[in-house]
């Protein structure tokens, strides 16, 4: 099975019942039983983290949450295709999956709750995360900006002759941004080791993909830059892994950018501030849930006789317990101290920020 760019249908390996669509030689792609099981467990873990994110908002403990529900497979499987020395530019939905790269669940919860144990020191809304020693950059909220900056990182990688890849995640809405255009153009002119990975969940908040772009696929946008664009079923863990791996290898070998589009769907409202009943039907959600990536991988594992319902219940229970324990601990952590607000604006805090800090101090104490 040759994987080609610019397919009009997303590349798929297993069907909705978890059955392989063609004779699969997983070894060819470096996939073994161990990886499959690990990947599945990571997808489950991601979904469980996501559930708790929503719960924290409902409990009034978090001010905000933005979900990964439905996109877990696309994120986890593509992250699996990277090596440790590669780089990740996440967007908000990536965050609950970042444990794949070694992020501690404590840190993910700390970020959601803005605790001092958050590597970002409670300075950003939930859904923003990065960790320097794990080669994960910290995104801001503006959609698409990460692609443009990732392009610059790729330039650095190339300049230093490092055999590394950076993958930049974003929704299909991010392709409308100027940053997407700049990143694609510069990356292709300078032949940079950049993968722009578009998690195409068919909506940008309430705006359907048909109103986001007139093009049939996002992948085809690569043609404007003489790049390759791949379309893959992001709810198919195996397909996503294979396509991403192939691209990562090519990018690493040849230093060139590639665009990947992964079809998927968001099950929950855009964020805890959204009411999705205004713009989509329940049935549509139900339809997509039938193609759920987690379930498909589970069924495939069952088909391979690697997994069964009992194991699954065990796993979930284990994860749930673990997560609840972690969360309990995180909730006890204190918030950052207010002095923190004035530091790390500059490398050395200027005189007026010192004064402002003193002013607040007097205000708090007096």
């Amino acid at each position: 099975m040759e994987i080609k760019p610019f397919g009009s249908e997303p590349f798929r390996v297993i069907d909705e019942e978890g059955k392989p669509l063609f004779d699969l030689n997983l070894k060819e792609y470096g996939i073994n039983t161990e990886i499959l099981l690990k990947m599945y467990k990571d997808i489950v873990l991601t979904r469980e983290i996501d559930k708790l994110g929503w719960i924290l908002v409902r409990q009034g403990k978090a001010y905000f949450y933005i979900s990964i529900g439905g996109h877990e497979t696309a994120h986890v499987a593509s992250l699996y295709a990277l090596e440790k020395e590669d780089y990740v530019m996440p967007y908000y939905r990536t965050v609950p999956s970042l444990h794949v790269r070694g992020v501690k669940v404590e840190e993910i919860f700390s970020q959601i709750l803005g605790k001092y144990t958050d590597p970002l020191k409670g300075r950003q809304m939930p859904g923003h995360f990065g960790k320097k020693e794990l080669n994960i950059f910290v995104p801001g909220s503006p959609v698409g900006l990460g692609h443009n900056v990732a392009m610059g990182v790729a330039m650095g990688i190339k300049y230093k002759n490092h055999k590394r890849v950076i993958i930049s995640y974003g929704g299909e809405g991010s392709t409308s941004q100027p940053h997407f255009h700049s990143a694609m153009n510069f990356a292709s002119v300078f032949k940079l080791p950049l993968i722009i990975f578009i998690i195409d969940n068919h909506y940008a908040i309430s705006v359907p993909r048909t109103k986001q772009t007139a093009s049939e696929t996002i992948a085809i946008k690569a043609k404007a830059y003489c790049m390759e664009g791949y379309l893959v079923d992001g709810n198919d863990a195996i397909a996503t892994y294979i396509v991403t791996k192939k691209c990562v290898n090519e990018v690493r070998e040849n230093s060139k950018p590639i665009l990947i589009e992964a079809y998927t769907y968001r099950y929950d409202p855009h964020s805890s501030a959204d009411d999705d009943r205004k713009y989509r039907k329940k049935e549509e959600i139900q339809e997509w849930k039938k193609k759920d990536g987690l379930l498909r991988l589970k069924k495939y594992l069952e088909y391979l006789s690697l997994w069964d319902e009992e194991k699954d219940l065990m796993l979930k229970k284990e994860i749930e317990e673990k997560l609840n324990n972690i969360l309990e601990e995180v909730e006890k952590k204190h918030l950052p101290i207010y002095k923190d607000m004035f530091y790390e604006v500059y490398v050395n805090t200027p005189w007026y920020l010192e004064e402002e800090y003193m002013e607040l101090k007097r205000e708090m104490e007096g």
Partner: protein
Amino acid sequence: MVKKNIAEAIRNALDIMLSEDERVLVFGEDVGKKGGVFTVTEGLQEKYGEQRVFDTPLDENGILGMAKGLALYGLRPVAEIQFVDFIWPGFDVIMSDISKERFRSGGQFSCPLVIRAPYGGGVRGGLYHSQSPEAIFAHIPGLKIVIPSNPYDAKGLLISAIEDEDPIIFLEPKKIYFAFREEIPEEKYFVPIGKAKILKEGKDITLISYGYMIHECKKAIEELEKEGISCELVDLRTITPFDGETILNSVAKTGKVIIVVEAPKINSFASELSAFISERAIYYIDAPILRVTGWDTPFPYILEHLYLPSYKRIILKAKKILEV
């Protein structure tokens, strides 16, 4: 009269203008079916159709390019930027094109359009859903910047803005979109652009502010009153072109000024007002002109309550100014 909060008052203004002027078009991200992330445009697409009220791709640069072109073609675009923090990808259109059109074309063309955007802190929006960048726009000749602090002004100013012949940035204090309802006329009315309003007369200190901060000022004034300190409160309403006369009159009376804005202090619009006053009225002034502002840091998330100027901070400054 009807009772409306700021969000409703703005919706009401849009509704009136859409219904009476075919040239008015309302667009932006999620303004259609969703009715905007703050419900401001709710129901308008249903009422006026997708031709008049429509969603755009996720690109502020395109939204502003579209607005500019529509205005050139004789229409009256009212573009929504979901949060003013996201306006920068399209800033070139504002800075280089919209603001300069009338001047650079020798007066041949003009650019009557409104860019609406929620701004300011107080909703735990972190760095990118909280900023108050009015000072940046205020430095650009050719733009008008309007910020209401209450439902009555919100409606009347927006109607004036849509009928104005110049490009207007209309910043909506998101923190108080739903904070309180007020009686306002049901029908069309205007609040003039370029005119400040004295919300309260007083004799000891002039407080100048706008947007959400007006309400922190009011609270501070109430407290200060108890101690026998009388403040005059000027609601600027229009940032540029600002109402210098009202300011100078008030300052001449009190001799003491505190300017309250949410933005970081350095080069905030508080700085402009202070400079304006000390250039024109220094001989009336008998105390430092003080600015109460956000800190000169990015907008924080979990600590935002310590970032935003509060009535307490205003009271402290008021007492300081009276001490000396």
